[in-house]
């Protein structure tokens, strides 16, 4: 299988604190991969390293670019450049633009795929109007797919919780990513919403051809979704494999149950 | 050499005052992560209250040392009361609002207090009597440092020590530190966060008032506008030392005091205020956490 993301030997230190240590991970095309681990294991730090919020102190983040043989190294790029390269993310604690409408939130995702500048905005020439219209239509299309179209003109802050989580996904999808990074998408959802999310993520993979890397604590969701699972603990990778393999891996059980297993 | 020493001690005196005002900024920032724009005005009100009390008591014919003490105490009480009220009106209702709102509200308060004093009192500069007597034992050094400077330095030192004791060893100090770490957790373990915030404003305002009285009597005149520029400079001092850090505020005050003293002594006095601002810009660009500041708390 072709790899779209390959992370090699990734390390991140904050001062003396070693948050990540020699982590390897890869995501194939059309694959759903989960990254799990106890709280504080370094999962979100890992996401931040990949998406440019932090610059990793060691290792490489490589992506394969269509039409090119050599993978491209993206660590050290600014977050917006990483997004332009085709990696889009959501946040663990929802970070929408509360004072903007739902549609505008998604249109922000279109930003890096649009070109019009200040002059274009003021003169509002044909190409600007066309681009604007295309952006509106594209964004609306995504909202329809995600099932948020009834809320188009609502302020993002007024949406129910589950819808806000889905809006974050819609916004990320508007950037036309090849890889979607979801940071605890099911956090705070009820079983019903989680089930819907499960279906949604699968649909995004199947219909849009977007690979997915997700951090999640809801094991039922992880087991149902993932093709492969990576487990980190104390900043180190302790296991990888299919859901079945992970379920029976003693190191993983130990990491999760910790002291209880020892006792 | 004497010239240098004079500038050095002058800078130290100036720095002590900045430090006294900077403490208020730093303590408030440590707890509610808000720059209390009106803090300089509290200091100005302290100085004004002191002047009013002194004038009244002088007419009544009291002796100077007693006047100094009474005026100082009343100034501290009033500044604290203003600080307390200020928090209740302009900040407390905005605790959950975006920071921009609280900041604008603070600017509004600063504007209000200045004009309040301007309208109720006067826009003129008023002479402020020098209340510190010339100590005899200081006479040989009078060409380098005056008695007033000595009093300022000693008072600053005492206030610093008391404040450190307050924060390190008392219950309310512990509560303040807890609230500055994590307000929600502090609330959960039974700390009355509202009271801690009020208390912080009161203590910060009290130190500002002490600074106000000292500098007014040192410089010899005041008007309604003194708080603004002193407030800005004290803020620079607080940022310089690392906002949120109490020893940082003191160090920042000294560094700023020396910079100004030497820059005006050796370069030019026209641009005295520019140095403070340039310093601030440079610090924020190259070491935003300040000299002694905690490095980024990563509030991403």
């Amino acid at each position, binding site marked *: 299988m072709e790899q779209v993301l390959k992370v090699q030997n990734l390390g991140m230190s904050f001062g003396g604190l070693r948050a990540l240590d020699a982590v390897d991970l890869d995501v194939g095309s059309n694959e759903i991969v989960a990254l799990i681990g106890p709280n504080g294991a370094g999962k979100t730090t890992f996401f931040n390293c990949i*998406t440019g919020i932090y610059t990793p102190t060691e290792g490489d983040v490589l992506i394969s670019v269509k039409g090119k043989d050599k993978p491209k190294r993206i660590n050290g790029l*600014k*977050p*917006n450049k990483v997004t*332009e390269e085709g990696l889009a993310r959501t*946040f663990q604690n929802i*970070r929408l*633009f509360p004072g*903007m*409408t739902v549609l505008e939130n998604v249109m*922000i995702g279109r930003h*890096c795929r649009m070109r*019009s500048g*200040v002059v274009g905005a*003021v003169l*509002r020439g044909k190409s600007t109007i066309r681009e*604007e219209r295309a952006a509106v239509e594209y964004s*609306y299309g995504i909202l329809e797919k995600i099932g948020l179209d009834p809320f*188009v*003109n609502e302020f993002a802050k007024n949406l129910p919780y589950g819808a806000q989580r889905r809006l974050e996904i819609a*916004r990320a999808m508007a*950037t036309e990513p090849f890889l979607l990074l979801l940071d605890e998408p099911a956090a705070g959802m009820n079983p019903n919403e989680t089930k819907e999310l499960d279906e949604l993520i699968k649909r995004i993979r199947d219909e849009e051809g977007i690979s997915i890397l997700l951090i999640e604590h809801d094991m039922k969701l992880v087991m149902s979704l993932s093709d492969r699972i990576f487990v980190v603990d104390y900043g180190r990778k302790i296991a990888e494999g299919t859901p079945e393999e992970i379920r029976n891996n003693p190191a993983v059980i130990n990491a999760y149950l910790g002291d209880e297993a020892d006792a | 050499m004497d010239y240098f020493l004079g500038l050095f001690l002058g800078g130290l005196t100036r720095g002590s005052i900045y430090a006294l005002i900077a403490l208020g900024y730093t303590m408030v920032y440590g707890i509610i992560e808000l720059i209390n724009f009106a803090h300089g005005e509290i200091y100005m*009100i302290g100085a004004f*209250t002191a002047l*009013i*009390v002194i*004038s009244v008591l*002088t007419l009544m014919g009291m002796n100077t040392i007693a006047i100094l003490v009474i005026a100082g105490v*009343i100034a501290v009480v*009033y500044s604290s*009361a203003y600080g307390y*009220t200020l928090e209740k009106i302009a900040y407390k*209702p*905005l605790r959950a609002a975006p920071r*921009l*709102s609280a900041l*604008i509200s603070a*600017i*509004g*308060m600063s*504007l209000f207090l200045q*004009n*309040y004093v301007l*309208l*109720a009192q006067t826009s003129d500069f*008023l*002479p*402020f009597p020098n209340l510190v007597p010339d100590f005899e034992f200081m006479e040989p050094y009078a060409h380098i440092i005056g008695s007033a400077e000595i009093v300022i330095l000693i008072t600053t030192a005492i206030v610093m020590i008391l404040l450190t004791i307050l924060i390190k060893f008392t219950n309310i100090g512990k509560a303040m530190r807890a609230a500055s770490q994590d307000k929600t957790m502090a609330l959960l373990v039974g700390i009355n966060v509202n009271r801690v915030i009020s208390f912080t404003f009161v203590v910060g305002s009290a130190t500002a008032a002490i600074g106000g009285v000292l500098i007014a009597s040192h410089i010899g005149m005041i008007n309604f506008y003194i708080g603004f520029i002193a407030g800005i400079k004290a803020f620079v001092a607080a*940022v310089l030392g690392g906002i949120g850090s109490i020893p940082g505020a003191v160090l920042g005050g000294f560094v700023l005091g020396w910079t100004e003293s030497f820059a005006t002594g050796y370069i030019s006095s*026209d*641009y005295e205020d*520019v140095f*403070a*601002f*340039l310093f*601030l810009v440079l610090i*924020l*660009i190259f070491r*935003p956490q300040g000299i002694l500041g905690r490095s980024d708390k990563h509030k*991403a």
Partner: protein
Amino acid sequence: MITFGQIKKAVLVSIWFMFLTFPIMVIRVNPVEHIVEWRWKNMLLVGVGSFILSFVWHYFIRRKELGAQKAELGEWAEAIPLAQRIRSKKTLYKPALVAAGIFALAFPFIFSLYQTNIMASALIYVMLGLGLNIVVGLAGLLDLGYVAFYAVGAYAYALLNYHFGLSFWMVLPIGAALGATFGILLGFPVLRLRGDYLAIVTLGFGEIIRIILENWNEFSFGPSGIANIPRPSLFGIDLSVHNATIYIYYIMIGLCLLTIFVVNRLQDSRIGRAWIALREDETACQAMGIDKTKTKLTAFALGAMWAGMSGVVFAAKTTFVNPASFTIWESIIILCIVVLGGMGSILGVIAGALVLILMPEYLRALSEFRMLAFGILLVVMMVFRPGGLIPNVRRTYKFEGVANDEKS
């Protein structure tokens, strides 16, 4: 219903404020002549005033809390803002616009020259407000040194005219360009700063510019400033003071329309959305592929540009510039305009500028209380109506089967 508890509270508040304001309000000293004046009447005023205000304050605080509770329960009893209602009714919106236009054009013929002159000043503030609105209202960057760009424009005209004899119309675009350039120059060092730090550094920047203008005599003629700056000419013809005043009024109407047009278009564009996203959440904004640096710098540049331009007009209008016109308080007045009107709202900023600049002119008796009132205004607006008088309305779209957008 007023309960006993509320009265007790109001009495306590009243006593507290009488105590608080006692030294400053009641006693007035003159240390030179050793006179102490006792003004007990003020104490009474404070007591009664704070007693009444206590009721008003608590009433509004309760209302606000009630509103917040309702919002949490999902009861959206929120009334549609007036601005939106007017806008959504084409039959109301268009005639209102036309009426306002006719009034603006006929103003110099209806009112005296004195009033036209005041109106022209107010329009300068409209322009300044709209410019600052880009930086503060849309991009959420609290800039307290905005007046520096105004000064840049004013001194650009004064100096270029003095040294090279350049005319108003030649300097107007130069002023805009210089304003934008200074905006970027300020923008670079403060890119990494947020919120309070940004505010204080921009404030410092504004003061630095003013202090330089005050002290660098060879360049700016120091505190005495530059006088005899020519008023704008009409196709090379110099106008009388009377006609020039009217002319400047129309120039300002034209410039304001230009500003409104440009800001309105920017607001609903790719750039405008990026500004708002930046204001709402910087990290998320960057993660969505928006170049933070570029977005901030365009906001600073495009905001400062208008200040540069209005500075040129200001210099031409008063024919005299000196550093005293460009203090920090000027920045704060402009900020008040934006805050009162409604951050991010064009209509609001226009209303804010007209109210804040015209009111003190016509209520001369109260003009000494102007800054005091501005201070109260900032606090009260932030506490009770952070959206301003006329809050910003976001564009909405209609979708009927096929996605075709329509301004509703």
